[in-house]
């Protein structure tokens, strides 16, 4: 009877699911670089969440000194940890609040890439035939587009909001995830527990969603984590080129502001070095996590 057999098969379909988090924790302890990556993320998430109370000033408020002068281009001091911009804005406050758009773009793009990649990979791998061929040709085509120029053109046409930047990044990055997930689905379809499910009379959709989908979650997570860094760098580059959202302060807009205001000429390192370091740290954290996670998924690659 199907009703009796099903719990068995469900258990077989997700043989590693309960152990995964335990393995993850153990792996993290053994893998210092992944641990560093996770810690960096936690710090930035905390900063972004508490940004309102950490930042001493309103980031776009024009500040004046006690004697009524514009507080422009001040060097770092106790009152202004990283000095002020040429228009008298507090750099440190901008830096703290700049964590928000970066994390928003990075994390939503990760979710979007993982979702689209899984959906396309599942459908292409499981259905096969012309659906598979059409989707994979589409993936080839998207991978053949020049990344940043395409993002620039598309964002200029649909409007420079953070959501649109996430959308364009997702449009360009799903194929990598979809290809790998598709081949994983092809391998899984040959496995015995799928055969068993079919014998018990499970429908195609049920097999796809209940038996195969849970097994591609780790891969989707891996490609999502890779997308974090790409999305954050893309958003920063777009802001720098002047195509970013103009109403939000991000590390990219800070750098653009510093560049356009001759901060380089005036050697205001405290203005344009910290946003760059924050970008490096967040993107590097993404690299470290995805590398560590890759070793967890494919232990052989980690040797050497």
């Amino acid at each position: 009877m199907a009703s009796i057999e099903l719990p068995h098969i469900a258990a077989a379909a997700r043989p590693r699911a309960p152990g995964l988090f335990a393995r993850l924790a153990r792996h993290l302890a053994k893998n210092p670089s992944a641990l560093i990556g996770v810690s960096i993320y936690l710090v930035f998430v905390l900063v972004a969440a508490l940004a309102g109370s950490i930042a001493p000033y309103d980031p776009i408020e024009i500040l004046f000194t006690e004697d009524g002068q514009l507080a422009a281009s001040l060097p770092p001091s106790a009152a202004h940890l990283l000095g002020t911009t040429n228009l008298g804005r507090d750099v440190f406050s901008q830096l703290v609040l700049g964590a928000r758009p970066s994390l928003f773009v990075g994390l939503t793009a990760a979710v979007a890439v993982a979702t689209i990649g899984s959906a396309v990979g599942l459908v292409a791998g499981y259905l096969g035939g012309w659906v598979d061929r059409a989707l994979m040709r589409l993936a080839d085509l998207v991978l053949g587009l020049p990344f940043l120029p395409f993002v620039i053109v598309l964002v200029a046409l649909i409007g420079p909001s953070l959501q649109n930047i996430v959308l364009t990044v997702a449009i360009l990055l799903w194929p990598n995830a979809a290809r790998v997930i598709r081949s994983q689905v092809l391998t899984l379809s040959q496995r015995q527990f799928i055969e068993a499910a079919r014998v018990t009379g499970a429908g195609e959709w049920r097999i796809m969603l209940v038996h195969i989908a849970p097994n591609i979650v780790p891969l989707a997570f891996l490609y999502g984590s890779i997308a974090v860094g790409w999305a954050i760098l893309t958003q920063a580059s777009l802001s720098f080129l002047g195509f970013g959202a103009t109403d939000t302060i991000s590390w990219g807009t800070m750098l653009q502001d510093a560049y356009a205001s001759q901060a380089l000429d005036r050697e205001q390192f405290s203005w344009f070095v910290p946003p760059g370091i924050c970008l490096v740290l967040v993107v590097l954290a993404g690299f470290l996590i995805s590398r560590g996670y890759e070793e967890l998924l494919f232990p052989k690659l980690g040797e050497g």
Partner: protein
Amino acid sequence: MAYFGRRFLHMLIVLWAIATILFLLFRLMPTDPSIAHLDPTFTEEQRQLVRAQFGLDRPLFEQYLIYMKNLAEGEFGLSFRQRQPVMGLVLAVLPNTLLLTSSALIVAYLFGALLGASLAWRRGSLFEKISVPLVLATRAAPEFWLGMIVLAIFAFGLNWFPSGGANVAGARYASEWERIFSLDYLRHLVLPVLTLAIYLQGLPALLMRSNMLEIMREEFVTMARMKGLSERRIMLRHAARNALLPLVTAFALGFGQSVGGNVVIENVFSWPGLGRLLVDAVANSDYPLAQGAFLVIAFVLVVMNFIADLMYGLLDPRVVHGEH
């Protein structure tokens, strides 16, 4: 030969598809591409005249056919702003971009291959433990920010190099060759090349390292060891040589990607190249120019991917015979 033909056909299809996507993007957008450049004081009649000039009053499919025919003939239309043929504007800056990209890639791959080889050679050492995260950090750094640091130090701080452009303003040269090989041009080239090379070296370095580590596990290396060859000789003659091959294809792929990725570097250093042209055109809603610059960037990318495919086939004959 059949392999070559198949890849070539594939390349043409990709080019056609990219051109079509771009056509649809620009035409199906809610805003009329001709409005932006039109003076608000234009009368409705003048507006129609301009639209007719650019062929924007015809049915979409007819516009598409004209567009494809023009592209096939290398005709990219007139720039809205400069009123000059787009092709001429694009070709004028193309050498700057190609030169920047190839110089940076050569520096990056020479340095990266050496670094990667020495990382593999000293695996497990402190040098390797520090270098690998450092290399990853250079891949994580935004290119434009690296460029800003380089500018602040070498152009503004030390005053060693100019801060932007490709030639001193107003300089005249007898020919394009003379301009490119002038000392002035090379001085302007140094900082953008340095910045781009810092960003690009990470990939060959990491690739070389993992290739070497993989090869050193193979039998012929064990064989060489058993023959009593010195570790140095094994490394250089056997491991490094074979590990270099995949870098050749990575170089070709990197070239294509970098021509598009240069957009940011060219803007930091005001380098008059394709990327800067694209950004200026998009910022000014000069659609024909933006379209032309984008298509040429895409063309370089697709052609380099094709060349990489061919080289991959040449270096590894199994690819040619196995694929169907």
